[in-house]
């Protein structure tokens, strides 16, 4: 990705952005936050009227587009065989309106899925994709806490195009890659003025001051004994449902289950992977019913320590402060308040 000089800065209103989406749609499926009931989901849009750039957060994070909640890995056939072959579904995609926290999560998963082996399913979709990021002008609501983790509210890289709302529904548009620059070129935006660029700087500096929620996860890790032995886990585990909502909505949770399923002819079938969660009882269960995280407390602790960056995924599965797990936890378990309890002990 070559970084294009700051001269390539433009200004666009929603009509202009509509042109960008139209240009993009000739080459990509465009995914953006779309209202669904009381929440938002990333889904395909046809124009700017389908999306709402003032969204707070989507239910599932945009990482779902690359690391699908459920997908087929391979197809097989048993008779005269077995015979089998891979199934990789790819379409060129633009992900439009990605917040800093979610973009950072995508960048972490990029590294995670190329760590020792390469995950061809994730990478096939990711490598053909274009990201249009969107700076936040402050926390989207009381659940956001990216500022204290350095994962937002401002985006500093990893995008093809970056949008900043500098005035009411007026967006400063910057290219972060050749592909982004070409798309902007085709959409024929006006060049930004000096004052537009100044406005962006002002947005960035005020945005991070407005956060009410803080977190410091440093050194809350395995195998720190003060963390492992803390009584907060017992208290929170009494409330926890082991429902998995927290990890299923987390943009840096990648864990999955793999299983085979047979068609009705009992001859052909698929190998499937489906998002899993370490909060679920079955996650660490082995043959004959053995389970290394039988207690809810052990599962809750593992989940949170993983999000602190202290489990086996390291910083690549650590929290980016999107606030989803706090909002979607039916038991009101709050990673930021648990962390501050633990902080007192370490």
């Amino acid at each position, binding site marked *: 990705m070559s970084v294009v000089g700051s001269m390539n800065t433009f200004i666009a209103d929603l009509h202009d952005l509509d042109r960008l989406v139209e240009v993009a749609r000739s080459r990509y499926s465009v995914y953006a936050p779309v209202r669904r009931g009381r929440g938002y989901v990333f889904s395909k849009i046809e124009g700017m009227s389908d999306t709402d750039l003032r969204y707070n957060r989507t239910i599932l994070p945009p990482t779902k587009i690359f690391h699908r909640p459920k997908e087929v890995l391979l197809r097989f056939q048993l008779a005269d065989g077995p015979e089998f072959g891979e199934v990789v579904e790819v379409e060129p995609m633009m992900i439009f309106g990605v917040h800093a926290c979610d973009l950072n999560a995508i960048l972490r998963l990029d590294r995670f899925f190329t760590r020792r082996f390469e995950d061809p399913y994730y990478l096939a979709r990711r490598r053909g994709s274009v990201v249009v990021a969107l700076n936040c002008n402050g926390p989207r609501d009381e659940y956001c806490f990216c500022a204290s983790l350095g994962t937002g509210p401002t985006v500093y890289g990893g995008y093809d195009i970056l949008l900043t709302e500098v005035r009411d529904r007026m967006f400063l548009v910057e290219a972060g890659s050749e592909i982004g620059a070409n798309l902007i070129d085709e959409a024929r935006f006006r060049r930004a003025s000096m004052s537009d660029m100044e406005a962006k700087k002002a947005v960035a500096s005020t945005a991070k001051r407005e956060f009410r929620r803080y977190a410091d996860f440093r050194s809350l890790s*395995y195998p720190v004994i003060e963390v492992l032995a803390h009584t907060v886990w017992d208290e929170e585990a009494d409330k926890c449902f082991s429902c998995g909502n927290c990890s299923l909505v987390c943009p840096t949770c990648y864990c999955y289950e793999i299983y085979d399923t047979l068609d009705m002819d009992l001859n052909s079938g698929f190998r499937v992977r489906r998002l899993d969660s370490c909060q679920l009882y079955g996650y660490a269960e082995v043959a004959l019913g053995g389970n290394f995280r039988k207690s809810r407390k052990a599962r809750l602790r593992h989940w949170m320590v993983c999000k602190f960056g202290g489990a086996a995924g390291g910083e690549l599965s650590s929290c980016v402060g999107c606030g989803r797990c706090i909002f979607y936890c039916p038991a009101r378990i709050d990673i930021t308040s648990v962390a501050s309890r633990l902080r007192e002990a370490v």
Partner: protein
Amino acid sequence: MTNPYIPMKAEIVSIKTETRDIKTFRLKPLGGKLKFEAGQFVEVSVFGVGEAPISISSDPDVDDYFELSVRRVGSVTGALFKLSEGAIIGVRGPYGRGWPLKESEGMDVLIVGGGCGAAPLRPAILKLLRSRDRYGRIELLYGARTPSDVMYMEEFEAIAEGSGCRVLLTVDTIAPDNRWRYSVGVVTSLFDKISVNPFRSVALVCGPEIMMMYAVRDLLRLGFKPENIYLSMERRMRCGLGFCGHCQIGRKYVCLDGPVFSYSEIAPMPDKIV
């Protein structure tokens, strides 16, 4: 980009019944060879049922076939047991970090196996005996529940016959009429009889985690250093590639960082028995 989730085909060329619930499958990889190190494992596919991680139990220096010694405990292992010679299954791998054989040269080696835990130890034993002169004393302790649960019996007896490796066998219980010529008692009860020098030995341990816990406790008491006690750990495992998450023990991935760990690496981690 090659797809690491796609197995290679392998043909079952022979099947040996080890015990009432353990069989050794000799497999010929079709379209390629499988080069592996002692202690590594493969993901075995029985299509339609699923995959299971299984240690390679054969000689790492033989590469036109490899063997898997499998205990029947559930879906995939159950389906494997229904297959006969000539059947084709899928395998991918090898994966993981094996036993530290190179690093242990010049030292005594104590091998401690329990039940099906002999499977990943067998390639290590074969390899150690092949370069016998590079090691000090070598001793093998193996325990099973009853005499009919002892796997690799003839091989262990043959090794005991030859020079170079002392073999001590034990079973937890025997029937009154049983002609068992070796010890009775849990495997750790053999520790009284060992002659390796704990201060310059490595211990290679594999078995049920509860057995490994007792083994580690006694080895430490005997003077083995925590960093010289190696354990092969078992967890639920799906991908074998460091992604799916199931095999984590604290900060460690069993599939990438293990399955063989030194006790000092694994000791501080939570959610385990050892």
